Structures are given as structure tokens and as C-alpha cells.
């Protein structure tokens, strides 16, 4: 599904990803953990195609296509979804209208006929229930005036409606209380399937109690420094990131 090889990328002159490697097969859930500044969010941005970042080396294959060669919108249309760490507000544009536009564009790209209005409404209703999103939120402007938790839940709702084959969750757990966390995690779990993969980026092990990953990777200084089964997350939680840093023989930066 996703194959990242020796990816080097940065912003301006600063290299942030320094040879990142990752293989994600269909149906797998990979967690990427790591301290602040290790490059986790940069990874998400680069994969989604944010223009501020320049890729200097490496290759990314997504479903057999050269991902780096695709525009951000084409990546989305190919089935890549990013749940934003900081979802953006679009005043005056209802969530429903936003998703309708997105679906229309995605279907057009895939050569599918436009979705019938009644099918679309059915889909929205169904997914709304799945992620326990209030009807009023679906009808409000995209993220406008939403609380932090509502915004994150709205990301999962959008993911549910757009049905991507690869979803990257960028610190979706940040700013969530325990109830919201559970709802978001439930939503994700319900969307897990053998042909949908997830890359879950998080600081804390907490989220992984609910979304149980197949693999855990520890990212530090722009690359993966340790990989293991889900238990690795618990070990990290217990020992802290310093443990990794010590293991690497690195000096802790202030």
C-alpha cells in the first residue's frame, strides 16, 4: 500500500526527515511515536503534499504510484486521507456541502458518475452515527466555532464519508478528553478493514489502548530508530523517550 524509502525532506534549508523508511501493507495499523520535534508531523505533511516542504531524496510508492509525483488533491483522490492536527475553519461552507464537493471531485477523478443526492444523504447519515457526530455539527460550517474535540471528531467523520484506503492520523488524540478520545478511537476501529491502512501519529500511548496497532515505530531526529509490536508503546510509556535517546547514545538537547 505505502512504501517509503530513504525519505529526506525539510523546510527552507532545514532537513527534518533524514532518511525515513516505512512499509505499510493493506489492513495494517502502524503507530508512529516520538518526542516533540522528531519530525512526525512533517512526515504527515510531506505525505499529504504540503508545498512548504521540499523533498530532497527518497521515494514514496502509494498503491503502485509515485506519490511524490502527484498533486495534493490527486493524492487525496487516490485514497490518501490526512486527519489534521489542527483542522482548518471554513466559514460559511457547511460540512455537508464541503463533503459533497469533495466526493464529486474524487468520483470525477476515478471516472465514476456523480453520486445521487439521496445516496449521499444516506451515506452521511450512516457515517454520522458511526462516529457519533451530532446532526447539528454536520450542518454547521466546516469546523467553525467547533471545540477542539468536535474538530477532531469531524476529521474522523470526514474520513468515514470519504472512505480512504490510507488514513494518516496526525496527533488526533491531542486536546481530547477521555470520552472524546474513546469516541474518536471507536470511529477509527469501526473503519478498520483488510483493505484500509492507518498510520497513527501520537505522542502518548494512551490512544493506542483504544486503537491497537499492529506495529509501533519510534521516530527520532527524522527517522525511525526502533520498531516493534504493540508492546513497544507500553515500554516507551514506562521508560520515556530518554530511554531511546540513551540507547542511541545521543546527547539530550535542551
Amino acid at each position, binding site marked *: 500500500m505505502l512504501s517509503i524509502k530513504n525519505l529526506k525532506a525539510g523546510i527552507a534549508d532545514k532537513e527534518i526527515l533524514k532518511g525515513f523508511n516505512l512499509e505499510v501493507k493493506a489492513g495494517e495499523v502502524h503507530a508512529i511515536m516520538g518526542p516533540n520535534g522528531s519530525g512526525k508531523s512533517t512526515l504527515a505533511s510531506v505525505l499529504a503534499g504540503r*508545498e512548504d516542504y521540499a523533498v530532497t531524496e527518497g521515494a514514496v510508492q502509494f498503491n503502485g504510484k509515485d506519490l511524490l509525483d502527484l498533486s495534493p488533491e490527486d493524492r*487525496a483522490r487516490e485514497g490518501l486521507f490526512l486527519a489534521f492536527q489542527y483542522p*482548518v475553519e*471554513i466559514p*460559511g461552507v457547511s460540512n455537508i456541502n464541503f463533503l459533497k464537493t469533495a466526493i464529486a471531485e474524487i468520483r470525477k477523478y476515478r471516472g465514476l458518475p456523480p453520486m445521487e443526492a439521496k445516496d449521499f444523504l444516506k451515506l452521511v447519515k450512516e457515517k454520522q452515527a458511526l462516529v457519533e457526530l451530532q446532526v447539528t455539527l454536520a450542518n454547521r460550517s466546516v469546523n467553525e466555532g467547533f471545540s477542539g474535540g468536535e474538530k477532531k471528531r469531524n476529521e474522523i467523520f470526514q474520513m468515514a464519508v470519504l472512505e480512504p484506503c490510507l488514513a494518516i492520523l496526525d496527533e488526533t488524540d491531542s486536546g481530547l478528553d477521555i470520552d472524546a478520545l474513546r469516541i474518536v478511537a471507536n470511529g477509527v476501529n469501526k473503519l478498520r478493514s483488510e483493505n484500509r491502512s492507518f498510520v497513527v501519529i501520537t505522542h502518548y500511548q494512551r490512544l493506542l489502548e483504544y486503537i491497537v496497532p499492529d506495529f509501533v515505530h519510534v521516530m527520532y531526529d527524522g527517522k525511525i530508530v526502533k520498531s516493534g509490536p504493540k508492546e513497544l508503546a507500553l515500554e516507551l510509556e514506562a521508560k520515556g523517550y530518554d530511554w531511546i535517546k540513551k540507547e542511541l547514545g545521543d546527547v539530550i538537547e535542551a
Partner: protein
Amino acid sequence: MAKENEILEEITGSEYKYGFSSDIETETAPKGLNEDIVRFISKKKNEPDWMLESRLKAYRYWLTLEEPRHWAHIEYPAIDFQDIIYYAAPKKIKELTSLDEVDPELLRTFEKLGISLEEQKRLSGVQSNIAVDAVIDSVSVKTTFKETLAEKGIIFCSFSEAVQEHPELIKKFMGSVVPYTDNYYAALNAAVFSDGSFCYIPKGVRCPMELSTYFRINTLGTGQFERTLLVADEGSYVSYLEGCTAPMRDENQLHAAVVEIIAHKNAEVKYSTVQNWYPGNKEGKGGIYNFVTKRGICLGDNSKISWTQVETGSAITWKYPSVILKGNHSIGEFYSVAVTNNRQQADTGTKMTHLGKNTRSTIVSKGISAGFSNNSYRGLVRIAKGASNARNHSQCDSLLMGDKCGAHTFPYIEIKDKSAIVEHEATTSKISEDQVFYCKQRGIDAEKAVALIVNGYCKEVLNQLPMEFAVEAQKLLAVSLEGSVG
């Protein structure tokens, strides 16, 4: 960023869709303006003496005025008023009895614009049950659904016809809201106006369809000076639409219209404009100077006048649709979206003059500037002494696209009554790259993203438009802003 600018370029680069000109046999007056031209126009229209006198009075007054060039936030070379043709009319339209006699080229012109002059026909799928008065250059060529409306006692005809058929109404109301002494262009218009629409809704009648006037400038070197007069008698209701386009030409053309609305007791008038005059090319060559005076008066108690405008065209727009709130409990509203791109300039807004008690006004202005354009909101809220419990809420938002354009807000407030409550809110924002990227990540490309975001930004105003018009306006916004993300 560079890529986005490219897309922006591409979108803003789109051509003006209505820029064609039609080869219609036209009769024109000689260039220039003097008393003879005023007499010529009046004679062409076979006007009664009182009308000619009123024109001459306005003309003589106009001569004493100086072209106002400095107070608005716009820049342009002085206009040579002797270099304008003040009257141009398609030939052979006088004895028209049926549509078959209309010059087919003229019919084609309006068809191209998506306006049907045949009552049963739906052209673009947008026109539905709308009565149209079609004005080309200086004259009205056809008014549809006249008979249907007449059954309800509604008068909807060209201004020239109204002068002949309903002189008492014209004498009573013309100039009662915008007198010829009002301003330079109002005086000019009163002297040389050629046609326009007249509408009278009798007591207690709710107009069963949208009324609309479609203005088209065709002939080279002409100015268009139309007058529209709407009178809503007690307890009546009418929704009125106005659309306009012009061919692409290298020189500037002047459009100086006057619109007057009179709303009697319990009457309501909704006036919507989608203004799409030729804006000039990207370098700012050509385009229409749109210098218009629009004003309504809520004459009776509980009356309401609501202006909605979507301004996307013209090289320069200078207009302030206003409401005088004379009747107690009367309501004035102004909803505006003004888009400027490339080298366009707009100085537009409203005046709400509160005279009656318990009067209310609402102003919602959304300015969008892109390219090298300048977009100003200028508004006045005046609460007169004795206009107790007057309320106003103004909201003026500006959206900037790119870093070469300007947005300005000039709100004036004059309060002479202590019980007034006046609120003013203003914001300036940009379409952020984050918003565009967010849309892209959901599969929506930059161009569509901008259209989506802008439509969202203008929603409050677009919601005020009649359905058929709203769809048009949305498309127009997208086209006007193609390529404007920065």
C-alpha cells in the same frame, strides 16, 4: 506558493464571457452634449413639453457643476463629456407589435446572454417565471409578461412608455427620491436619460413573479443613462432584479443610471442586482465606468426596502444604494458583495438615513479584492433628531487575495438622537494557504477551493438573492476570481 500563484494567474486570466458585440442597425445621436442633444433625445422619444423642460432644467444645472473626482477612493482620467454619444437605439423598433418584428440579431444578442424575450421559453434553465424589460443602449426593446401583470393592475413597462401612458405617476414620483440636484451624475442622467424601467404595484398586490431589467450596452462610444422608478403602493410586494453586461472594448464607456424606489405604508421592495459590466482587460484598459445613484424611500409606516447587490464587473464602480427611513417602524437593508480583480476599482456602500421612529437598518458588506484592484466600502448611518429607538447593525468584511490589492473601509456615523443603537463590525481576512491545502487534501483543487471559500464568505449576501439569481451569482463569483489565491 509559486504553484498556487500560477493557478491563481490561470483562473484570473479567464475571459469576460459577454464581451461580444452585435451588429445591430443602430441610430445614434452625434457625439457630444449640448441643449440640442437634450432636445434631440426628447424629440426622439416624442416627449411632452414638461418632460423636455425637466431635462433642460437638469442640463442647465449640470453645467454649473464640476465633475466630482476626488472624494471617492478611485482614480481615473477626467471624462470628456463631449466625446460620448448620448443616444443610440436599434433601428425599426417603433411599431413593434410582436416579437417576430424584432431584429433577429437583437434576439440572438439576448439569447447569447441567456435572456429570453419569448415568454414561454426557458433559455439557460435559469430564467423561470421572470418578467423582463430588455434595454439595449438607450432604449427598451421588449418587456415580457406585460399583459399577465396588467391583470393584477401592475404596470411594468419601459420608462419612455410610462412617460406617455402614465404621466401623472412619473410627474409625481420621478426625482422625488433622487432629485436632479442630488449629484453630478444624477443631474446628467436627468438631462439625457434615454430609457429604463418603470414599475407600479397597486395597493395590496403581491407581484406574482420576479420583475427584471436587463441592461446591455452595445454601441461603441455610447454612454448608457437609464432611469428606473419603482413605486410600491400600500401593502404591496415586489422583488426586482437587474442584470447588466457590455462588449469588450478598449475605451471606457460611461454608465450613469438613477434608480428610485418608493415604498408606501406596509409595502416591501426587494431590489437585487448582479452587475457584470465589462471590467476592462488585465492591464486595466477599457471597461465600464459605473457611476450610479440608487436610493429608496420608506415613505409609509412599516415599509421595507432591501438592496442586494453582487458587483463583479465595471472598471470603476461608484454606487451607494441607500434607504431613507421616513415611515415609523420602517426597515432598510443593504447586502453587498463587491469583487474587484486585476485593475478594477470599487467604491461602494450605502446610506441609511433614519428619520422615522423605531426604524431599523442592516448593512452587510463583503468586499473581495484580488490582483491589483482597490475595493472600498463607504457607508453612512445617519440618525436624525427625533428618530427615536432607531437601530442599525453594520458588518463590513474584506477579503484580500494576494498582496497587491487594497481593501478600505470608510464608515461614517452621525447620530442626533440619544436613543439610537448603532453597531459596527469590521473584519479583514485573507484566504489562507491552510484553508486551500485543507480543501486539496480532501480532493478539491485550488480553483474550486477558492470558489468554495469565497461563496462561504459571501453566503449571508447570496442567501438574500432569489434562487435563480443566486446560482448565477455563485458562478459569476467563481469566474471573476479565477486565479486569485496567494
